[in-house]
């Protein structure tokens, strides 16, 4: 979460503290800068309109996640209506089978990982490749660190559904990242 804010929230403070955060969630959910900018502007103005109703940093942070997710989903829905694409039963899209062949270890620090810019880009690209319903859950759980119950409330899913999608998303992410992080064979 962001650092604690002073008691009095001003538009400038909200802009400074929250605009980059809103933008990042929206960009990761929507997968492109233009849509993320539209959503960021909408959400920021909503926050500023309601500034005097917030009583603390945790309250605004929770609300902000919810409003950003709602705005991004609405934006995506509009886009989908324009593109008219069918998704089918989303929970069958990603499999959960056990690995059939050898699984190589990764060359990642056992402590707090420090990622190079190139690694950031690899992870962001993998997130973008997740099917949208899985991407949403993955982002909110494993990037933003929100509890499953909160994610369920935001996305209109049961906790069991959140957990199922999260597990499938993690497995796909693991597969997408593996070629970039696997230890090289000594030769």
């Amino acid at each position, binding site marked *: 979460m962001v650092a604690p804010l002073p008691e009095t929230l001003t538009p400038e403070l909200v802009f400074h503290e929250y605009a980059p*955060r809103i933008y990042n969630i929206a960009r990761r959910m929507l997968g492109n800068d233009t849509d993320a900018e539209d959503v960021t502007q909408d959400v920021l103005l909503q926050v500023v*309109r309601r500034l005097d109703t917030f009583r603390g940093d945790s309250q605004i942070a929770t609300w902000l996640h919810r409003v950003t997710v709602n705005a991004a989903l609405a934006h995506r829905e509009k886009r989908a209506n324009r593109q008219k694409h069918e998704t089918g039963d989303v929970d069958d899209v990603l499999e959960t089978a*056990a690995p059939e062949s050898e*699984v190589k270890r990764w060359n990642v620090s056992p402590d707090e990982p420090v990622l190079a810019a190139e690694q950031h880009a690899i992870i962001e690209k993998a997130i973008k490749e997740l099917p949208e319903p899985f991407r949403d859950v993955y982002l909110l759980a*494993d990037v933003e660190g929100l509890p499953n119950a909160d994610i369920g409330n935001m996305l209109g899913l049961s906790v069991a559904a959140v957990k199922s999608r999260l597990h499938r998303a993690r497995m796909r*992410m*693991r597969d997408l990242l593996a070629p970039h992080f696997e230890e090289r064979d000594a030769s």
Partner: protein
Amino acid sequence: MTCEELMAVLADYVGGELVVEHHATVKIHIDGCAKCGSYVATYTHTIRISRALPKCGQLSAAFEAKLRAALAEHLGEATS
């Protein structure tokens, strides 16, 4: 426990949500199965490196200017 059964409880195992006996069963399987041991390690790495991503995005100068203008316009309307 089979490898397939491990996959079915992996998220709960990683999240520390299994009861002690079940956790121990999973641990025994992982310790005895190199493939699953590596899989669990890399699944966990996936979560850890995702959590290390920055939470704030860099706004472009053009977008920041546009956003500030929208905010100023909104505040102007709100006070007039």
